[in-house]
């Protein structure tokens, strides 16, 4: 394997992944705005490498209950993509689509979150596909509502095979009229043998 994840800070590779993050997140915001037919502002996504222990802190600590929506990536490159929200952001996101009576992860909320996650991750992956000319698609979503540490162990373990860091793409969407804010985190997790395919398709030689 010619790929060294931990040396990325000083290389062009992190910039490339950051750019993929920016464009993917921009497309995801546009899709969200179309879906709810409201104006959505998006803060510039923050792409960073974090230590394992820092990641759950972003979501209120390892025991804080959060929502993770997970997809497998299939096609020319393989891996997975996960979208994680804390409870408040998850409820705000569903409320944008359709106001609900109780703040709970009931059946409606869970299926709405799966559907929104599907559209966000789908537009992210389609922009990645457009940039790289790789034929890729996402699986049906799997959703889990549980402790942040437990949900984030999934990307941490995948990245852990390469590194002591996790790459995280932080996105904030703000619905302009009601100023409802949704803070979401994407984890793009290529399988080990797909890093070369992904970066090679963007002209980065390892």
């Amino acid at each position, binding site marked *: *394997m010619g790929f060294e*994840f*931990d040396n990325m800070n000083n290389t062009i590779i992190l910039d490339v992944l950051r750019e993929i993050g920016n464009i993917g997140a921009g497309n995801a915001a546009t899709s969200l705005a179309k879906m709810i037919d409201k104006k959505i502002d998006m803060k510039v996504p923050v792409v960073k490498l974090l230590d*394992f*222990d820092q990641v*759950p802190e972003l979501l209120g*600590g*390892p*025991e804080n*209950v959060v929502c*993770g929506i*997970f997809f*497998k990536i299939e096609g020319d490159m393989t891996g997975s993509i996960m979208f994680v929200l804390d409870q408040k952001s998850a409820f705000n996101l569903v409320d944008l689509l359709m106001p609900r009576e109780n703040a709970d992860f009931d059946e409606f909320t869970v299926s709405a979150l799966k559907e929104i996650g599907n559209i966000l991750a789908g537009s992210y992956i389609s922009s990645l596909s457009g940039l790289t000319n790789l034929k890729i698609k996402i*699986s*049906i979503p*799997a*959703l*889990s*509502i*549980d*402790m*942040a*540490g*437990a*949900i*984030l*162990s*999934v990307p*941490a*373990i*995948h990245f*852990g*095979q*390469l*590194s*002591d860091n996790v790459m995280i793409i932080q996105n904030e969407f703000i619905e302009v009229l009601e100023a409802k804010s949704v803070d979401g985190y994407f984890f793009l997790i290529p*399988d080990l043998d797909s890093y070369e395919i992904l970066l090679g398709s963007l002209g980065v030689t390892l």
Partner: protein
Amino acid sequence: MSTMVKVGMADLKVVSHPDALTTLGLGSCVGICLYDATTKVTGMAHIMLPSSKAIRKNENVAKFADTAIVELIDQMEKLGARKSRFVAKIAGGAQMFSFTSQNDSMKIGERNAEAVREILKNMGIPIKADDTGGNFGRTIEFYSENGKLIIKTAGKGIKEI
């Protein structure tokens, strides 16, 4: 006064009586708890992967089941514990997301738990309690006073093993 010492992800810690150990929000990782009832020396590791062998970046011994268990035994013996008296309790190894068509990378929790059992068996350390698998996260607390392991979940209650 006893202190509750926190063990992070890919981390391990050893304490003496009366201190206790905890790790928060275990998912597919496995918490390995070792105890010597005579000296009350207590150890905990929070491992992420089964084996350091196929991984090039493997300096952090606490990240892998094989190297973490060796290091834990070593540190506990330095505090006066004896390996022949050790008993183990393990928890975690969940599968947080499931799909109908499973590939190996999704079953990492199961593989972690399996590797831990195998290594402990080879080391001759009996497993007194095993709370692994399922699709939910766990916070664990391990007490040097009596080797009790408390397992907390989000929505599935608290139990003692």
